[in-house]
């Protein structure tokens, strides 16, 4: 247990989600263990008593997340409603509790998987592993980042943000991490055998995480070899893919892909329609933000359902944007993404993330993913500059 607590505390720091020595993680079997001493432990020991859960994760998010979350909490009342697709699917909304009393914290967690305590931090829980709490904590950071920048752009487009919003935005943008300047050098394809392909996938997965193109465990990747789709397992961390890749034969002779990524259908659809051999899927933030920007939303009959119903052909950062939800089903992205990628090696799913394909190896797919995010980032700042020419933004990739 202690090993798991330390592992996810370290990950929070390594992913820029919390400052060193600040995450507090507790895990319970017969008795409670903590990753470290902390004055807040008393509060969370009582939360444990109030809730029948296996683990708790708490930290004050690192900047710029802390400022973003506190600002959103001040503007969104008792709950923050994320608009990005995947976070909305799994978190629904994020309760805000002003009180740091154990009962108030527990009450918030009885409602949802994670909660915001303004000025204090983000708390989440797990029933089977501290990993759940880590994922929910990370998702809150991601969802709030996307919501904050989306709200700011919307404010710019409708008369301009108020001074407080403007001040927080400038503070936040000044703290955005410097993006990587060069592409990674990944294994060259085509891959001779399955073992080589598996190693290349693990390498590419680590690069996607290192470059900040995916949060927590979201995102996936696959490789087609010998008429079998090798794909990352559902809920696998892209930086820990060794042993977490499922072989899914395309002749349907096995259900070994039962634990495969929920986007297996979409990957299979892309392989069906293209000569792709590798697919990368990440959640780069500005691609997600820009995919939800639509100038016609007010007049559109599908305005409140654009993530599943949008029929307007759109491109952002040079990539087509398609509607679609996670997984299968009538509104699943498995229905919309493959047709789009038949004509474009990269596509963005509305409010979700970027899929990039390559006919050889992960180098090209990675470059596409990174380039799409760069163009979306630049387009974001071009738009706010255009709407507020008196403000100079210098954020550039």
């Amino acid at each position: 247990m202690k090993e798991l607590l330390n592992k996810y505390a370290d990950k929070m720091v390594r992913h820029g989600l919390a400052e060193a020595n600040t995450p507090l993680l507790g895990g319970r079997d017969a008795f409670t263990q903590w990753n470290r001493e902390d004055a807040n432990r008393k509060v969370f020991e009582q939360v444990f008593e109030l809730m029948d859960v296996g683990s708790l994760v708490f930290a004050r998010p690192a900047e710029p997340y802390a400022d973003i979350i506190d600002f959103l909490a001040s503007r969104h009342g008792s709950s923050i409603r994320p608009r990005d697709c995947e976070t909305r699917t799994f978190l629904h909304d994020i309760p805000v509790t002003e009180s740091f009393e154990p009962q108030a914290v527990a009450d918030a967690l009885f409602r949802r998987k994670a909660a915001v305590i303004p000025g204090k931090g983000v708390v989440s829980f797990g029933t089977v592993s501290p990993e759940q709490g880590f994922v929910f904590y990370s998702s809150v950071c991601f969802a709030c980042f996307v919501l904050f920048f989306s709200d700011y752009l919307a404010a710019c487009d409708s008369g301009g943000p108020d001074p407080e919003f403007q001040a927080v935005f400038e503070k936040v943008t000044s703290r955005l991490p410097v993006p990587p300047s060069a592409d990674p050098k990944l294994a060259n394809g085509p891959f001779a055998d399955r073992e080589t392909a598996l190693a290349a996938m693990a390498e590419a997965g680590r690069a996607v995480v290192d470059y900040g193109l995916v949060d927590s465990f979201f995102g996936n990747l696959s490789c087609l070899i010998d008429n079998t789709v090798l794909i990352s397992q559902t809920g696998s961390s892209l930086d820990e893919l060794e042993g977490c890749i499922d072989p899914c034969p395309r002749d349907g002779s096995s259900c070994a892909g039962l634990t495969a990524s929920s986007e297996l259908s979409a990957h299979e659809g892309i392989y069906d329609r293209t000569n792709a051999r590798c697919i990368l899927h990440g959640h780069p933030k500005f691609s997600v933000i820009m995919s939800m920007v639509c100038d016609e939303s007010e007049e559109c009959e599908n305005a409140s359902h654009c993530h599943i119903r949008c029929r307007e052909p759109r491109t952002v950062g040079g990539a087509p944007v398609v509607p679609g939800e996670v997984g299968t089903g009538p509104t699943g992205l498995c229905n919309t993404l493959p047709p789009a990628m038949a004509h474009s090696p990269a596509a963005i799913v509305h409010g979700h993330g970027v899929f990039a394909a390559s006919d050889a190896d992960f180098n090209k797919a990675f470059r596409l993913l990174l380039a799409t995010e760069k163009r979306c980032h630049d387009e974001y700042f071009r738009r706010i500059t255009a709407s507020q020419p008196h403000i100079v933004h210098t954020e550039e990739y």
Partner: protein
Amino acid sequence: MKSDLCGWTGSVLHIDLQRGESRTEHPGPDFYATYCGGRAMAGAYLRPHCTRQWDHPQMPVCIFAGPLTGTAAPASGRASLMTRSPLTGTVIDSPLGGRLATQLKQAGWDGIVITGTAETLVGIEIRDQRVSIVDAEPHQGAQTSEVFDSLHELMPPDASVACIGPAGEHRSPMASIMVDRYHPAGRGGLGASLGARNLKYLMVTGSGDVTVYDPEKLAEAGCEIMRLAAASPALMGPNGFARNGTAALLDLTDSRRMMPTDNFSKTHFPAAHALNAPAFNARYHARPHGCEGCPIHCHRMADDARSIPDFVSLSHLTALIGNTDMELTMKAFDLLNRLGLDAVSAAGTLACVREITGRDFDENTLLPALHEMASGKGPGAGSRRYAAEHGEPERSMTSKGLELPAFDPRGAYGTALAVAVSTVGGCDQHAYPASHEILRKPVATDRFTFSGKARIIKTSEDVLAAADSLTACRFIFLAAGLEEYAKAVSAVTGMDMDLKTLQIIGERACFNERTMNALNGFDATHDDLPPRFFTEEGSSGDGIRMSPLNREQFLLARAAYCHIRGLDEKGLPLKEKAHELGMEPMQDGDSA
């Protein structure tokens, strides 16, 4: 009486087969808020009678739907049946699929409590508020398929039927109940419980609707649940249950080298890849079938209308007994359903017979063996009795006398613990640790450690007991959670029910079942596994070491479970915990 409740009908039907009478009870709102429905409510009705013998006329057979049954809440068309097990002597509960629960609610009943023994074979027919006990002598000895065929001509198209076959009439402790032809309530000998009451079938048809407090909020909750279901590879993915049936799991137990083979003496079956779900589905042109209101449809039917075996039945009718013949597997499963015999316990018992006698089963011997078991003869009393009678009790792969499921405990330690501590015996369904140990949901856990598993098992038991009380299918909890279902049940009932409320309802149900077992003499020493798992290595290979379970670590995990569950070191319910849950504690000297 018109109920003011939403979601519930406010009426429980009591049927006394001995007197041929029925009466209606209207429990108060507090009772509904405390027990919700399904499994928790059935347990409340069973508790006062739990120390009676399983075939005592006053031992009730309790069937309860839940507040979500009959509403638009996804995957909520189930009921729970509970009584004392003819096979194990423990409390036994089973979900009832098909249309039964929905029809029950539409007929105006939250549940049925059946007591008494009819003088001759009878059927119960419920048409809304009209309850009839009818002569079923013409069905004596009939297989379940014959009962369904016969009643089908006489009843409304939407009516639901639960019936027993010859095994139940012969009171085989492995007898099952079949619901709407394709849905077995298999484990623990429930069919014998009906047989002991001379009850051949139960038919229910209803014409009413279930009142929903806030349909709009329910629709919103339903969308959230369905969005999660669509995102679940296990449920809706291209390899998932919706496309392949639960037998899709076979390829995972194969690749993880944890497929129980040759009576659990091995964990790898070389022929598995040729006997998997895609192979059966292709050969028999499978089509999906499911319970009322279910978006998953995890059953598979062949083009000749036979059922294709579910995961556990398929694994045990092949690997466990050394059978590689697909058609023989189909014939055996079909016969088991027609005889009304639990496929899991029957196959587990045959595997035990095979190991002790050294004789294989083939097309000439397998089906006759099933007929013999259904007649209550030969090994028909289950593997524990058979192995004991042959002086080799350690060959019975059971816990508390119930044959084990199709995950080898050496390949998943949470499953090992869950099976051992289950109140019904060798069953993983009360905690379903395969969810995280195999299917990676909600996240993956290390399957080769006991660390953290005691609390996970306890918490999962509470969650799934709450699901059984709502009632919602346990499989949907591979995607959604109580958080989403709390919103649904609040919308249906108008009561503010959050995660905590449902957790306590689930915990109360589990603690009550534990208490009933304790009253019948069960304690922690019964929460155990056969010695084979602690002494013999499984079939290691493919880089996977299948070591024997470490006995010391297992006992520590079991002790941790008892502590977390609110039991003393002997595994007996603590009074303090009973009081905390607002339940009547077990009194000193109560144990049977």
